[in-house]
């Protein structure tokens, strides 16, 4: 399970690095979003395997060793909320850029800049 998650994290990070090297802002932003997901998954992986464990609402006398650590999940939840805000912000920036320049290609934006 850990190996699987490690591979998934690696794939997500790799894909996001590839996307971030894109020549268009859309791709760059998608890369950033994906990076966030990879990070969340990495945090999840440290909480240990959930297989055979109970949800963390315990009744009296339950063996605590079957207790999945809830903290990483709280961390991920926070990170997801923050990530969501950031995605909304970045998309807004992209919309504004598109409205002003009618292009999202970095090369075009750069040349326009020089002409400006």
């Amino acid at each position, binding site marked *: 399970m850990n190996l699987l998650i490690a591979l998934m994290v690696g794939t997500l990070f790799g894909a996001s690095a590839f996307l971030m090297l894109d020549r268009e802002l859309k791709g760059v932003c998608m890369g950033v979003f994906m990076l966030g997901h990879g990070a969340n998954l990495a945090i999840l992986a*440290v909480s240990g395997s959930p297989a055979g464990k109970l949800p963390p609402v315990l009744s009296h006398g339950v063996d605590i060793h079957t207790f999945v650590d809830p903290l990483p999940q709280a961390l991920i939840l926070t990170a997801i909320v923050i990530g969501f805000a950031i995605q909304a912000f970045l998309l807004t920036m992209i919309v504004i850029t598109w409205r002003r320049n009618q292009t999202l290609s970095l090369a075009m934006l750069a040349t326009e800049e020089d002409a400006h």
Partner: protein
Amino acid sequence: MTQHQIVLFVVLPMAAGIATTFLHRYRKAQRWVGAGFLIANIVFACKALATVVPNGDILVSQMGNWPAPFGITIAVDTLSALMLTMASIVCFSVFLYCVFQFDRDQQGGFFHPMFHLLILGVQWSFITGDFFNLFVAFEIMLMASYAIFCVGTSRKQMKQAYKYVLLNLVGSTMFVTLLGLIYGQLGTLNMADITRLAMSDQLPKSSIPVIAMMVLVFGGKTAIFPLWYWLPDTYHTLPSAIGGLFAGLLTKVGAYVMIRVFVMMFGTSQAITDVVAPILLVSAGITMFLGVLGAVSMHTVRRILSIHIISQVGYMLMGMGLAIATGIASDIKEMAVAGAIFFIMHNMVVKCCLFLCGGLMVEHAGDDNLEKIGGLLKRAPWLATLFMIAALSLAGLPPLSGFFGKWVLLSAGFQSQHYVVVFFAVLTSLFTLLSMLKIWSYGFWSPSMGKHVDKPERRPTTVGGMWGIAILVIVALSMGLGAQKYYTMCSMAAKSLIDPTNYVKAVLGEQNTPKLAINDMLPETSPKKLVIKSDSYETSGH
């Protein structure tokens, strides 16, 4: 100030942010509310400082009364109190400047709420005692800074904003990933608890690379040598006052966190300092020297000042590096940290002040390209005076604040025989003076030039801005003339950072271990995890 009142440092700016959001149609009310909150902020920061300093007390508050490693801790020690005081003064001055000098568009929209939320993030990072909380505070601060970056922007600023936003996002993601990994390794994210692990030498070997990678995250935010590329391109596109706010607060928060993490938390762990100290020291030398060379080569006021931020960060790094380098006596280490703290405080004030001066220079001359302006000495003699004091203070001439910061750092460097870094520090000082004189001689001394300089009818009203600058100059002067007082506080802060026993005790309680008797449930070797006994879970009121 009682221990639970420290939560005000988060609550006040948050309340100000919310209030000004609802008042965004009523500009006057927005300003008055903002000013009121900022003044209250200064008062509380000074009160906290007065409470903490005499005995080196630490004010700790556990959120929701959850005991330390499990709940969220906020704590104000001497270092935090010093930072809070300086930051609140800087915020107030920039606020004055913005209110009086910015036109309606620049202050429009949600500028004021964003301003207060930025302060919220900054102050939260100063007082938090929890690593993940630090991430959240960073994010709030950065989100506000992105928004300030983009509101009412020119095209040029927008494009640079992408650079700033994306790089910071990558940095933040890296931060949160590392936090996850650290939690996986150590089983805790409470700063005091991690400090305890480091002090009792319980850090697992595998956590060392993860912790060393923290240099990348905080280094990026602080703009140290290989990671500083985003700063010169972005800051100069901002309006001067905002540039001043960012220069005075954002990079300094990074420096503060680096002191907190590498000096206090992991400074006692030989394995980590062996890796981090050389990185910091080498980077310090290169950062300060290359930064100042960049500044000397620039031709606009804002660019010179922006790149200068980097060079000044080098001095702070030097202090940190000396503080954790091996084979240095502990009194010299203390001196180095005290120097770094003094330097951060000095830099917050002076750097911000210079940016504000730059803003007023543009108001007077109509441009900030040094080749197109001149003669400001005649036109604005008071501005010239204030600029000169701040500039000489930055360069480090004797009776002013920069001198004492550098003096302490240099003598710590000499006594610990790190001559190379000392050499670069002295050289950098010289070039700093050169770059400041460049602004002075082109902007103020040369014959009158510039779009508006010869037109008396284009004389801008700069009273409000001048007050903002004057407050900062007074603080800078007090740091220079009363250096002994400030330095005593700094060395007290340094003492408790080099030996963090008091911090750990204050946060975790007397026995240095958590009160919840949980650890005995787990085998000795495994790191402590959040595991709650089923019966104690019931008695805790759920």
